[in-house]
């Protein structure tokens, strides 16, 4: 633990001690306030000041990511609410928050005048923490980190909104929002390394000695985010007779400039001249000479503007029949851009040469570096729906609706690939500049009929169901040109397909209240999907994906006694998928099983005590190539198991007339991490963690509450080889003052 953290902890501990001391002293002013059933009512206006200090042993950034709180602690105003009636019909309120460290801020003002409307505006911002981890390879305990793994992004939003809501008049709404997301977050697009302990050979007969690649992609990477979105909304709602009308215009402007930084083969550089393939007997490569480092960035830019118009109506024709419908039209265009610059480090006879997109000829594929010259996409969506709500009797409610949607997208992206041919004898660098074009045009028309019903005519029983079906024929054209291993323009990759998508979804359920003590709920669902791409030019050629998923949800709520409730929930979902290539080669590509058992127990043995316990046990597996692949394929990839158990326990109790306390415990366990074979890289989660805390809350005066929380956390992670473990105590204190 560093000194700063310790000093902060000591300060917080003093603060906590003070708060705890206050909580065990006599409650000042307690005699002035009548004792309510709940000693801690919510105040109409109040301010809550808090401090949170953990003392983290281990990976600080992993603590921050797990609890979404900074490892150095945070303090400030956790909540501020002030409301005031400025006249008989007008109310104003202000909400605020300012937590330093967590960088969580809010300032919002709202004014409401009865039968006139409201105006509000505000700004809020919060931080999300990431730990910038990469992968772990246990054969040689390989673990690589970013220089600064404590990453974070900030989401900010400004809004201003006015509503005019006069009685018996059209209701107007105007809203402007400006949202931003900036900062750095980690990425799972990890780079390569040969420092894995898997031996790689060169020389005569090397391939026989070297069935596995030494390359594993576990080098961490991150994305620098810079995104902004603005929305202007105008809406009007009005009721004419039995008809509700709703019209809305939204204009959206989105700009993003996100840059992903990658590092491949860091610390590696081949020898010059390269180790000879004629070496006999074969030798093991020193890992630092297997590959050449490639590092750089991939920038994706977007500047889009979209305007959407939506109109809806709902007419109550009779008590039994309501007709509804709507029309949506949106049109948008976007300037798109990419800028990918991957620098290759290359050994030559005259020394190290670095060049963007560097390569040495056939077999030395350039690492795809390009820049957009000009690109844009255009999108038009037109959809409408029409339906009726049918309520023929009090206990039967049904809807029938149909939606039509037409989507057209087209665009182009003219890019220039920059590669550099490097002569390893002279070190000369010869640029290879290749302009290419990318084109796309697709259209889809969807018909979606839907029916729902709910029947409550049987005593204490509700039956319901939903059926919808999507039929989406369309066409898709794509033309993309890249570069070859020699740096030149490749042959265009062209697809021109008819597309057919059919999707059916069925759901039926029942809710049965047996008596005051027992309620049962059950629901089954089934999805049947086909997604086909059929080559226009070659009959029979194409790709078809099909899947069928079905599932069950069961819930039982049993009030064994007035003060004891058991809530049980079981969810199971199974599904199979299959792919068919060119009408002939078919394979089951997926077999998924998921079982989730949940239980919550609520027990209040006395008025002064409650106990609540929760547990979730999940068995989840996704099976694709294993064991179908056979041979070496089965060593490369196993099933994806995502099993886990999590739970919590909390008991709250009255200590005295002015004091409550609670004990809290949480845990999470996942044991899916398998140690990789030399042929693989497994990612499954293997985690053990728990938290425990004691909370004391005391009414210090009739207008002042104090709260102190002392806890401990411990997290162990096998998937990262223990490199992201963390543990330690934490202290949280708060004071809430009525205003």
């Amino acid at each position, binding site marked *: 633990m560093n000194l700063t953290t310790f000093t902060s902890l000591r300060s917080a501990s003093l603060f906590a001690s003070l708060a705890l001391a206050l909580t065990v002293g006599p409650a000042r002013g307690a005699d002035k306030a009548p004792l309510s059933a709940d000693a801690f009512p919510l105040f109409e206006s109040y301010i809550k000041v808090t401090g949170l200090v953990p003392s983290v042993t281990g990976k600080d950034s992993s603590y921050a990511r797990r609890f979404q709180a900074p490892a150095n602690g945070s303090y400030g105003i956790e909540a501020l609410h002030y409301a005031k009636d400025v006249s008989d019909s007008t109310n104003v309120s202000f909400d605020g928050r300012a937590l330093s460290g967590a960088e969580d801020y809010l300032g919002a003002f709202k004014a409401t005048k009865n039968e006139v409307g409201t105006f509000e505006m505000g700004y809020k911002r919060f931080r999300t923490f990431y730990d910038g981890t990469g992968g772990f390879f246990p054969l040689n305990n390989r673990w690589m980190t970013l220089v600064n793994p404590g990453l974070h992004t900030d989401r900010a939003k400004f809004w201003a909104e006015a509503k005019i809501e006069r009685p018996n008049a059209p209701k107007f709404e105007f809203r402007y929002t400006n949202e931003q997301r900036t900062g750095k977050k980690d990425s799972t697009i990890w780079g390569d390394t040969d420092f894995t302990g898997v031996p790689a050979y060169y020389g005569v007969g090397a391939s026989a000695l070297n069935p596995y690649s030494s390359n594993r992609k576990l080098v961490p990477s991150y994305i620098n985010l810079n995104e902004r979105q603005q929305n202007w909304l105008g809406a009007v709602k009005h009721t004419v007779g039995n008809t509700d009308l709703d019209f809305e215009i939204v204009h959206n402007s989105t700009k993003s400039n996100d840059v992903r930084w990658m590092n491949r083969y860091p610390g590696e550089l081949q020898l010059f001249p390269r180790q000879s393939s004629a070496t006999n007997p074969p030798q093991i490569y020193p890992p630092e000479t297997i590959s050449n480092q490639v590092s750089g960035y991939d920038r994706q830019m977007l500047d889009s503007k979209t305007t959407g118009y939506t109109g809806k109506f709902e007419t109550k024709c009779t008590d039994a029949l309501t007709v509804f419908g709507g029309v949506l039209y949106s049109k948008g265009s976007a300037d798109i851009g990419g800028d990918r610059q991957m620098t290759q480090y290359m050994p030559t006879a005259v020394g190290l040469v670095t060049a963007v997109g560097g390569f040495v000829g056939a077999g030395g594929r350039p690492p795809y570096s390009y820049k957009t010259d000009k690109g844009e996409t255009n999108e038009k969506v037109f959809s409408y*729906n029409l339906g009726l709500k049918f309520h023929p009797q009090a206990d039967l409610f049904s809807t029938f609706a149909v*939606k039509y949607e037409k989507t057209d997208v087209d665009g182009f992206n003219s890019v220039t690939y920059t590669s550099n041919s490097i002569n390893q004898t002279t070190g000369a660098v010869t640029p290879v500049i290749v302009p290419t074009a*990318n084109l796309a045009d697709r259209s889809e028309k969807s018909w979606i009929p839907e029916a729902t019903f*709910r029947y409550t005519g049987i005593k204490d029983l509700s039956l319901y169901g939903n059926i919808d079906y999507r039929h989406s024929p369309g066409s898709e054209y794509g033309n993309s040109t890249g570069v070859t291993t020699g740096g030149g323009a490749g042959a265009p990759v062209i697809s021109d397909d008819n597309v057919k998508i059919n999707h059916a979804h069925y759901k039926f359920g029942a809710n049965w209240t047996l008596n005051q003590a027992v309620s049962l709920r059950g629901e089954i669902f089934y999805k049947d999907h086909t997604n086909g791409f059929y080559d226009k030019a070659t009959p029979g050629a194409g790709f078809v994906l099909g899947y069928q998923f079905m599932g069950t949800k069961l819930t039982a709520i049993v009030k064994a006694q007035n003060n004891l409730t058991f809530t049980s929930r079981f969810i199971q979902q199974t599904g199979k998928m299959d792919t068919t290539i060119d009408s002939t080669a078919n394979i089951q590509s997926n077999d998924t099983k998921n079982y989730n058992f949940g239980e919550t127990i609520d027990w209040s043995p006395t008025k002064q005590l409650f106990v609540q316990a*929760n547990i979730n046990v999940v068995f989840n597996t996704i099976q694709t190539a294993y064991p179908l692949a056979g041979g070496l394929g089965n060593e490369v990839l196993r099933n994806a198991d995502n099993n886990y158990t999590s739970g919590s326990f909390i008991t709250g109790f009255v200590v005295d007339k002015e004091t409550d306390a609670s004990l809290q415990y949480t845990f999470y366990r996942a044991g899916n991490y398998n140690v990789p074979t030399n042929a693989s890289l497994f990612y499954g989660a293997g985690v053990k963690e728990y938290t425990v805390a004691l909370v004391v809350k005391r009414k210090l005066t009739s207008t002042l509450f104090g709260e102190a929380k002392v806890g401990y956390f411990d997290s162990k992670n096998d998937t990262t080889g223990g490199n992201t473990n963390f543990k330690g105590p934490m202290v949280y204190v708060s004071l809430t003052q009525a205003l």
Partner: protein
Amino acid sequence: MSFKPRWNKTTLILGGAAAWGLLLVGCVMADRTVIAPPKVADATFVGTKKCAQCHEDLTGHFDGATHSNLALKDSKAGDIGCEACHGAGSVHVKSGGSKGTIINPAKSPETCFACHLDKRGEFSLPNAHPVLAGKVGCADCHDPHKGKVIKRTGAELETPNETCTKCHTSQKGPFLFPHQAMQEGCTVCHNPHGTVNQKMLVARDANLCLRCHLEHPSVIAGGVLGDGKIVAGGEDHRTRLQNGTCWSAGCHEDVHGSNASKAMRY
């Protein structure tokens, strides 16, 4: 300087015993109710009609909402659809709608967790939207008062992915070469409530992609089932998959869609 807290089983046992003793003393000394969330102290059901008197904008369309299928009733108050989530309303009604007399599920997920136990488990995982941290709420994605609780599905006008792309704008597109899975929805690959895997992925390895992209080995020359090949896109990917996932650096990096590579490589 170092600080090593000694938290061990003995500490926990003694601390727990002390806390339990404190509890027993408290139960004897204080005649006051401590409320387990999410409940309203001393309140009784009043029925949905009472709620509609002030909140007609919310109750007016509830008959078509997913949660109306529960059709919850109380022997005295009748329909208690609102109070099933907001808590019994008598104190709220009596106070004229005062703050703190009714539960607002938009500010705490506990109400939703009362029935959706599985979601409590998922949101408690290390890779989840920060609902438990209070930075995102269930109501940010779900509207329990109107229409389907999984919004923009079936015959509703808007498209499903807007629920996600209203915040995740970079994934909105449209891309020249979109990932078809995006059309089926972001939930094909991500569970937005939380998973054991980074980025809320439903699988952290190549199984994620192979569910839809695994092809029969016979699509390549000489390929037969069980020959050790893992075929996708008409190529044997076995060697590449031992290196890493399909979306690792240098492979198919732009998984949401690309504007320059039909194979979504960059």
